């Protein structure tokens, strides 16, 4: 191989360490800020070393929230986010995998038409049809409900395509062998296809969970009842809720708690995450 020279390597390490520092910096600042008492943020520049109030601040946000600004305790919002993320993830995975199964393993009239209907969802993100989608959800009485938070988001062309692509690589003979062995379509799906898809399901699970957890505009639109606030949108309420400067120590404690679950998912499932990310785009 072409050898790297030593100075080049040192330079590369320097660049990367600086880069990592820049990438990590905002979160470091947030963690530091979340450990200081409120007085720290009244004047002067924010500190770069931890303060003494970590336990107090986190206890406050988790149990009390910021009642005067109408934000409920973080505990409930974290739970809501978790429910929403799980519902979106499981919903997307289930309806996508069975659609892909239908498209690959059956021939039937209007197959291509349905494929294009699913494809269209790629071209119509929530952001481009905010008002009428809101109206539909309102008409269906799904405002302020977990169903409203999750169901409209679970149609997924990306996941359907990924599963379709994976199914196309499953050897033809497996299905034929299963048929000779007396397995019908759903038995084949359950006994053969599903177990074979498990890595793909896991990789997509990671991506979808992050997607679901990080939803912002949608919960903002359809929840007016603080009972259903999710944590990511709740932060915005905390920042802009009062007239005065935000209570930075509490906001940052909330930020840390809001970012923690998806970050942990990525750190602990990095291989699946990378697989999920790169394969959904193929």
């Amino acid at each position: 191989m072409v050898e790297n020279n030593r100075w080049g390597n040192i330079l590369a390490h320097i660049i990367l360490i600086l880069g990592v520092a820049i990438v990590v910096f905002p979160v470091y600042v947030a963690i530091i800020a979340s450990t200081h008492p409120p007085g720290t943020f009244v004047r002067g520049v924010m500190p770069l070393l931890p303060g003494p109030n970590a336990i107090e601040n986190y206890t406050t946000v988790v149990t009390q929230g910021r009642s005067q600004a109408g934000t409920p305790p973080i505990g409930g919002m974290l739970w809501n986010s978790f429910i929403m993320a799980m519902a979106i993830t499981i919903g997307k995975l289930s309806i996508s995998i069975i659609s892909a199964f239908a498209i690959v393993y059956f021939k039937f009239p209007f197959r291509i038409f349905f494929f294009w209907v699913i494809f269209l969802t790629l071209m119509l993100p929530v952001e481009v049809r905010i008002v009428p989608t809101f109206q539909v959800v309102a008409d269906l009485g799904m405002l302020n409900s977990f169903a409203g938070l999750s169901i409209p988001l679970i149609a997924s062309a990306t996941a359907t395509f990924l599963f379709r692509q994976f199914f196309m690589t499953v050897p033809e003979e497996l299905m034929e062998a299963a048929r000779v062995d007396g397995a019908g379509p759903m038995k084949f799906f359950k006994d053969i296809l599903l177990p074979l898809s498990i890595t793909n399901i896991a990789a997509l699970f990671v991506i979808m969970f992050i997607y679901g957890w990080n939803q912002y505009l949608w919960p903002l639109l359809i929840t007016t009842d603080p009972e259903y606030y999710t944590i990511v949108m709740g932060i915005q309420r905390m920042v802009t809720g009062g007239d005065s400067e935000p209570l930075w120590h509490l906001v940052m404690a909330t930020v840390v708690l809001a970012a923690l679950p998806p970050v942990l998912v990525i750190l602990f499932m990095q291989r699946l995450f990378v697989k999920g990310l790169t394969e959904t785009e193929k």
Partner: protein
Amino acid sequence: MQTKRMTFSSKWLPYALLAPQVIITLIFFIWPSYQALLQSVYRQGDAFGIRPPTFVWFDNFKALFADTLYLNSLKVTLIFSVGTTLLSMSVALLFAVMVNRMIRSRDSYTTFLVWPYAVAPAIAGVLWWFIFNPSIGIMPYVLDMFGYDWNHRRNSQDAMMMVIIAAAWKQISYNFLFFLAGLQSIPHSLIEAAAIDGASRMKRFWTIVFPLLSPITFFLMVVNIVYAMFDTFGVIHATTEGGPAQATNILVYKVYRDGFVNLNIGSSAAQSVILMAIVIILTVIQFRYIERRVNY
């Protein structure tokens, strides 16, 4: 579009399997989009039903393109998207090239660089908003030492800069992973051949590596523009709220404001339709590119 060579035979099962996905798509995607199309050519009626909605052809669109606020929003979106894409991609490419040199430390650096993907755009916005906070933020303090008076509450350029940095920061992970995968797929023998042909390291990068990365670069450009245009609502909404003086009022944020806060349904619908057209064009470009990549 293919199926398996042999397929199961059932009259109703495939429809039942597709039903959940298709029904949700119809109710929550197709129907609202159709409504948006419809609303975009009507002037809304009043709340008491005295004046019914009237069909106004393309008046809503004409009004939009005559509206300096909308034209401004287009311009702001363009600057924001291009800025975010360029910043995020160039930093990510630099990191990817450097990490690709490493052998033992490759995985550790990767771990440190990928996790911001998990941070929601809104949270990314709040983080940088805090860092750039004019009274207590660390960046204005540093900039002040260089004689720059940072204030994104008053200065339009400062505000734009801040939201670009926040949006780009979150997207670095994504671009980094794709660039790294692209770099790793370049056959080593090519680099070696170039080295034998006497190309210096810099020359090898710009004449061999970078051209071979061009399909990925193009793909990432499209993805990043889509991201900057549609997924960054949270960055704006949680921080500048489009200000100061409309300086960060990107299209997606404006649709939301006009629809939900100003309750101007016709205009908001017309804006939605324009956004739809943009997404459709970008998606088509992206898929044509994928077709090509699959084919060669």
